[in-house]
């Protein structure tokens, strides 16, 4: 058990009266980066939200570090060590960049070294430190969202499409950052459409369709297997990246 930080077994979840997840089975190895793939509407984002306790779980079990987190309120889940970057980023647009970061550092003061590391990664954050976050550009908001998630050390990072809207140079830097986090034995669950990016980072991979996991395996195997890609995702992943 010790090597899986998070385990989902047969998780079903509803949004309002709609059944969105129909039995998700997923295990995240500690310190590895797992990529979650799937078409639009497959339920990837919902899976992440379910882990955070943001949707109604109707069946199944979720275990984080061996303990059940089903029914645990979101703040408590977060404090157990899971950080989450939602797909709409969830920037507090009225707060300044600094205040956004202050909030993210639940431990109290921000660690200077870590902050420097972040500034290095995303220079615009330093530049707009005291500006209202709402006036940042789309990509800058994405940077801030990621920065908030990593300002403190966490056990598990859930990231929903981080490269969306980022310029290529930044994407490269971001990949480096994730590499570093991996090196610190942080487990990461990454939803990503940019296959180049996820292939570079991913160790294991899961593919979703229609609210279920339809494939699990090593990233390397999927990356080789053009036919499997076609079957699972409708298209070779090499195209258009």
């Amino acid at each position: 058990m010790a090597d899986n930080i998070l385990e989902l077994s047969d998780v079903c979840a509803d949004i309002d009266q709609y059944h969105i997840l129909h039995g998700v089975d997923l295990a995240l190895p500690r310190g590895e980066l797992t990529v979650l793939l799937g078409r639009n509407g497959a339920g990837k984002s919902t899976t992440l939200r379910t882990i955070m306790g943001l949707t109604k779980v109707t069946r199944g079990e979720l275990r984080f570090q061996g303990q059940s987190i089903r029914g645990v309120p979101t703040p408590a889940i977060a404090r157990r060590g899971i950080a989450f970057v939602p797909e709409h980023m969830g920037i507090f647009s009225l707060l300044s960049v600094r205040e956004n970061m202050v909030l993210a550092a639940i431990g109290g003061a921000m660690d200077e070294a870590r902050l420097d590391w972040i500034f290095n990664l995303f220079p615009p954050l330093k530049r707009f430190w005291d500006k209202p976050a709402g006036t940042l550009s789309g990509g800058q908001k994405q940077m801030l969202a990621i920065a908030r998630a990593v300002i403190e050390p966490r056990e598990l990072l859930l990231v929903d499409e981080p490269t969306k809207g980022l310029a290529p140079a930044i994407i490269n830097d971001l990949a480096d950052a994730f590499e570093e986090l991996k090196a610190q034995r942080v487990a990461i669950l990454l939803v990503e459409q940019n296959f180049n990016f996820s292939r570079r980072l991913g160790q294991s991979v899961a593919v979703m369709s229609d609210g279920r996991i339809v494939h699990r395996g090593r990233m390397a195997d999927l990356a080789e297997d053009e036919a499997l890609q076609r079957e699972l995702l409708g298209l070779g992943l090499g195209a258009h990246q």
Partner: protein
Amino acid sequence: MSAAPTSSSQAAAPRTGLLARLRALPEERPHVFLLAVVAIVPIFLMPWSTWLVLTLSGLAMGAMVFLMASGMSLTFGLMSVLNLAHGAFISVGAFAGASMLVYALSGYAQSPSLAANLVAIVPAFLAAAAVAALLGVVFERLVIRPVYGDHLKQILVTVGGSIVIFELIEVIWGHHDIPVPRPEALRGALVIGGIAIEKYRLLAVVLGLALYAGLLWVIERTRLGILIRAGVESREMVEIHGYRIGLLFLAVFAGGCALAGLGGAMWGLYREMITTHMGDELMISVIVVIILGGLGSIRGCFYGAMLVGLVNLYVGFLEPRLAAVATVGLMVAVLMWRPQGLIPVIKV
């Protein structure tokens, strides 16, 4: 992406000349500018000793209005809850405070000694704040909680809730007016150079300023302030960061109600007579104040209250009939000039 072009507030003008600074005032510090204009123009319309009395009284009245408005501004600015039951909480505070003074501590309140008066007043104000806060906790749980994020429903349930609170006041305290004699030390006026200033108004000014400073500090300087401001935008994101937003909002709401209660106790002692619906008396002024200042800005609320206090007195002297219309007119004029109020906070 927001399309509203935001005006420059940080566009620091490097010029330092006094004239240049004055010229930049309307844009950079509209609240100071407006307050100055409103206070200076009437000098030419009345004897200057009258002007002095009215100005001092007006500022003191503004302080009293601020005591009442700050709570509403707080709940609105921080939680985006439009609490139209605020007036009911003002009444509750007035009744709770008065009960302390009239029933429990009447001996101290009536004694001619200042110390004894303080023994009565401080607990009375605390009781007013505490009772209102407690009621606020209940109110938040039962009435407000289901309608976070929906202004329209907030308006409805809080108006409904205020009807209930007013009725409960009558059930508990009976439906007659209750006289609340002011403690000896706060009666009468200080006469300085032929100008009389009521002592009670001085107390209002002191309390108002203290509260203003305290609130500013909490909201702008503390993590609590940041957190609450964040919560207005997205409760979900605050929870994702690991904070229990529910508790936080409960506390803020109770705080807002406590301020209303305190304001009510002050107001009750000012009128020396408390009536069930007295809390609604100033609601329009309160609403004008929080719009004028820019919804949710404590600083704006303070300046707005001062403006309303002054305008009320000046116009009350020049043409009493127009006093009510004048403050509303001032508000509309300010909004035409600055659509978000003097110090905008929330972009709604």
